[in-house]
């Protein structure tokens, strides 16, 4: 008898929710931390838009990058 293969879960656009949820969580946490830092008057070295390698919230960024920079990053910088 011809058998059926086991069902394979494919990643779909719905899985972006997972990404979005994680990102939202990280953004909230990051904001909370920033608020805590502001309350204790500790000067922050990093701007709100930048992340570092050691950042515990790598996805916490909601600002779109400038278009020019994107093109440069992906190798479409013809100027």
């Amino acid at each position, binding site marked *: 008898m*011809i*058998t059926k293969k086991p*069902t*394979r879960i494919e990643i779909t*656009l719905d899985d972006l929710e*997972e990404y979005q949820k994680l990102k939202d969580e990280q953004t909230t946490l990051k904001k909370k931390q920033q608020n805590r830092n502001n309350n204790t008057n500790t000067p922050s070295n990093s701007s709100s838009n930048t992340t570092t390698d050691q950042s515990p919230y790598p996805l916490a960024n909601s*600002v779109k990058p400038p278009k020019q920079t994107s093109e440069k990053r992906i190798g479409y910088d013809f100027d």
Partner: protein
Amino acid sequence: MMATIATPTPIPPTPILGAGNIHKSNNDQQFLYLESRLTDNIKNALSMQSFTTAIYFADKLLTLYPLSSKKYADQLFLLCSSLYLDKQFQRASFLLTKYLNSIDKSGQTKCNQYQRLTLKHLAAKCKIETNEYDQCLQILGGDNDQNIINDDEQDDDIDDIDDSTDDDQQQQDNVIPFLMTDNNKSRLDNIKILRSNICMIRGKCFESMDNFKKARYWYIQSLLLDYNCYESFESLSRNHLLNYSEELELIDRLNFKAQDQWLKDLYLISLKKYDSVNQNSNTKILDTLIQLNNENIDDNNSNNNDNDNYKYFLSSNDVQTCIAEYNFYHHQFSDAYSITKKILKQDNYYNNQICLMVHISSMFELQKTNELYYTCNQLIENFTQSPISWYGVASYYQLIQNYELSLKFFTKSTSIDSRIGPSWLAFGHHFANKGEHDQAMAAYRTSSRLLTGCHLPLLCIGMELIRVHNLSLASQYLLQAKDICEYDPIIYNELGIIEYKNGKYQEAIVLFQKALDISTFNNQSSNGGEISESWEPTIYNVAHCYRKLRQFNQALKYYNMSLSLSPNNPSVFTAIGFTHHLEGKLDDAIDIYHQSLSLRDDTFTNVLLQKALSLSILEYD
């Protein structure tokens, strides 16, 4: 075996006046001479498969006896047996029913109960051949146990039979070996064999009339009377009328004699072949046979002891078919294919349904299009009217994705024999692949009705319901499938899918892991317990669960395992990239998204890549 030609009796001096009045003339010598000559001629003709000659002389022999005599019934049986062998089923059944009706009406006959039953058995066999199942059951007295002679009646019949002289009996035994057989067997055994065969015919009738419950009952009765009736056993096992536990229970109930253990073992290896985790007796034997087969032991008889006589039959095509089937159901498709290929090379016209089914299905799974095309051509040439041949053709078109022709030939296969469950199952796959849910469900349900003891139709219905997101109903079907066959890894994979879709990732992991454990165990004998490529989807599913639980290291471990089993699979690359992305390793994610997109351009990966690039650029700046 060639029969020895009997020494001719001396020719009597008196000329023969005419067969019709010889018995009236009281010339015993002439009568005996004629009887002897005709009997010898029939015997010789039958041994030479010259059925026309046998029929000619049997007809003459019949005229020697009056209708009411006891010997008339025997000679009628001889004539009708010859007609049966010559495939003149209608004539044989007509003569037999006419005689049986006449003795029922007149009641003036010396024909005993046993002879009557023998004639009924032959008439019923003829009716089966002409597809007249209702009439066949009518001859056998319908669906009534009491119509088969009781044990008390058997004893009377034995006495009755023993009334005949030894010479008479010997003569009968020589000509009609299948009537009263050799002297080593007791008369009681012969009656049991006859009763068993009558039960088997009833089973066949009910099976043909789609009454599988009664068919199953009569086949079991047949085997309980005589476990040597392979035809009943084959009908039960080949058509999946019993589930695995029922099959094992039946084998236990058959009470094989100690010296017939080999037959029990042969029956055991024909049973369903999924349950290797429990190491039941049939899987143990099959594992031993596979080991012997792999070692290619020519002299496999040397180390035999009394308990493993089945090893003598290792080279038999039927045993090899069982091994191939075992490999097939454990996803060892190339092993199964090599065995069936060898069988069909040695015996080109071997028409064992299981062997052909495994052969075709293995080629389908291995995507051997050329070989499948060639095999189907041969099958069509050799067995034009066999549904398996057209099943093969349909599978070929399914494989090359010519769905229109595939549909046409699946239809042809199921119209030739509407009771062929595997064809309906494949028909269901065809519709499921095309996304035609209703038709797929209808085909699967038909298959489920036909293969009552097999879990696969229920499993496929469950899978189809998962596809259309009817998870609660899918779960019910899958649990039913699990009740029939507890150790098919796919069932656990599908149950895991339901848990996953319900957001119960931890529970899903347990089920997927169980599927992997069973498949690993199943592969122990063949490839040392490594997970085969067939289970890549399950590994991939486990990885998804870990990703959902944000256990990214575990997820990546399983994704990498999946990638090793299915290299260059773009969806695995995307999943790995996504996991890195969620971990915050954006550069790794971007690299892997690019690898995925180089293999297949899809929206999801593009969206993720754009998001990853956005974040990464900010880091870069």
